[in-house]
């Protein structure tokens, strides 16, 4: 503790009780701080809490082909959890999540490491970082659809390979397959991994790396013993982004698998198009719980508080 701080403390204790006007001022300032919090509370209340509550409530309602009937039934949950289709779909979604998480982590860390440690000037770092964000100048859907002419049966990759004589006939699994789904998801989500990792890597004190080298560590040892442990908060934040985005994805799965694969969100979308809102709501609640558990698990492993 610095001497200055203790001085302040003793002065604060020595002050006499404030006069009544000052106390009114204190109450007023407390009200003012609540007032300042009101806009955000309203926005979060109306656009976040209320919809979630609605979904939770609707998930217990009854329905048929013609309408929704307020009720308190657990049928929607028993139907959802009792169906092997749900379990298979969850398994499939988790498979995508695991694959995409692993690949974005690998690529994202690599890119962030290169940007943080191998690019020397800040200007160049910023330029290259902006280059990473270029795909985000167009919409998700367009970026996804643009894979089709590349990967299609008569697409760029297949025609090139055939013309070069490497393969006799087009590769079928390039498009409308799990490969295509994972590829598109990695393409869409890697930046969410790069950004937080780059941020933590930039905060690593460079003298730590010199200290490690002074202690005889080689490049891999420095990476494993110093850089990766210190990048953990960034990895955790990036993982939360990627996991939540992939778990909730339906458009990529639908477009890139050509309707041959399912994800949990896609299942919900189908239920909604059949006007089975309570069933979709029950599904949504289950998905929300699963994703929250995954995020909690990530936060359990890594303490990200110092990054925020």
């Amino acid at each position, binding site marked *: 503790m610095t001497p200055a701080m203790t001085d302040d403390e003793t002065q604060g204790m020595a002050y006499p009780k404030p006069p009544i006007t000052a106390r009114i001022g204190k109450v007023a300032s407390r009200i003012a701080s609540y007032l300042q919090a009101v806009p955000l509370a309203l926005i979060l209340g109306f656009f976040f809490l209320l919809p979630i509550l609605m979904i939770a409530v609707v998930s217990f309602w009854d329905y048929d082909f013609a309408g929704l009937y307020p009720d308190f039934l657990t049928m929607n949950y028993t139907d959802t959890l009792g169906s092997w289709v749900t379990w298979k779909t969850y398994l499939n979604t988790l498979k995508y999540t695991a694959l995409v998480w692993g690949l974005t982590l690998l690529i994202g860390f690599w890119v962030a490491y290169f940007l943080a440690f191998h690019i020397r000037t800040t200007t160049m770092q910023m330029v290259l970082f902006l280059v990473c964000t270029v795909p985000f100048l167009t919409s998700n859907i367009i970026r996804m659809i643009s894979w089709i002419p590349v990967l299609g049966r008569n697409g760029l990759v297949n025609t090139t390979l055939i013309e070069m004589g490497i393969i006799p006939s087009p590769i079928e699994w390039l498009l409308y397959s799990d490969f295509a789904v994972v590829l598109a998801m990695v393409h869409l989500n890697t930046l969410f991994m790069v950004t937080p990792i780059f941020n933590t890597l930039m905060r690593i004190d460079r003298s730590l790396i010199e200290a490690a080298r002074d*202690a005889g560590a080689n490049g891999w040892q420095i990476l494993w013993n110093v850089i990766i442990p210190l990048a953990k908060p960034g990895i955790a934040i990036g993982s939360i982004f990627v996991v939540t985005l992939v778990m909730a994805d339906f458009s990529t799965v639908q477009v890139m698998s050509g309707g041959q694969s399912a994800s949990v969100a896609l299942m919900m979308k189908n239920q909604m198009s059949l006007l089975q809102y309570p069933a979709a709501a029950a599904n949504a609640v289950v998905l929300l719980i699963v994703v929250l558990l995954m995020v909690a698990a990530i936060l359990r492993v890594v303490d990200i508080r110092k990054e925020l």
Partner: protein
Amino acid sequence: MSKAAEIDIVSVSKVYGSTTAVHSISLKIPSGSYCCFLGPSGCGKTSTLRMIAGHESISSGDVRLGNIVVTDLPPAKRGTAMMFQSYALFPHLDLIDNVAFSLKMKGVEKEERRAKALEMLKLMQMEPYATRRPAQLSGGQQQRVALARALITDPEALLLDEPLSALDPFLKIRMRAELKKLQKSLGITFVHVTHSQEEAMALADIIVIMNDGRIEQAAHPREVFERPATAFVARFMGDHNVLTGRVVESGDGKVTLEVPEGQTFTVAGPDQEPGAPIDIGVRTDRVRLAAASDKTLGFNGVVSNVEYRGASVKITVIGAGSDDFTVIATDADYFEKPVSVGDAVSLSWGLEDAVLLGRIAA
């Protein structure tokens, strides 16, 4: 516990692009000595230290540690250990793992390295904190851990980059004493970079004063204090007033010079060519507020500032071409015959209190 090594720096230069940070310096640091590199920021002292440590490549020249030329060896193979300015402790490891880091890199078994690290922490009296993280320690404690981490490699020379600059003044003085004690008990060579004259005087067996990438003087503190080699050293150490002029005549072991304002001064020294530029240094604490018996050993000036410092009083005088000629008077002398700003005063000193300052070839 360890063998000390002599450090031999042979015309070492450091060039960054078109700027030269270190101009071909040569220096021998005897084994087991405490050497302080002293100088203003940007003088090349840290670059030199980092070249000895191996964290900076050597543009030309060689560094020898004991009998081995270490110029092209990586830091860990040199037998040196470095302590960084901000200590550079690993924030994600507890103290034991911090200290045991180099052993882990060498592949020492976990139990063995942790036991060794604990022993090292015990030596630094940091054992009670062994399972804490660096962020939970005070500056002085962090320094001890950094020392433990550096010394566990059993180095022949310990290199310290401004080790005390992050500490508050009281702690600075205490840790300074600890460093000196540690160096004495280990008997290894310490090379310590600092910008504090006081720190260097208190610690060093050899002070190396650097300016603009060159060594101005490398000598025992007493020699640096009593016989500063150059005008830069005299000004930087702050214990001498520097008067600059041209030689008028010399002979009989005395040199007479004339400052641009016209006064002449005498200093002991070898014969000089008349007309050559010359600097002399006059000990601030030996100047008396009295008329000179020999008019070449004193002048008349005007007091421009008076600072009370307790046991002494610092009086700044304008005159003889200097606008900050400093006189350190004892409080007894000063209060016997006080002067105030604007007063005309006569100053004088003895022949033995002035030294002839050299110039280094640029």
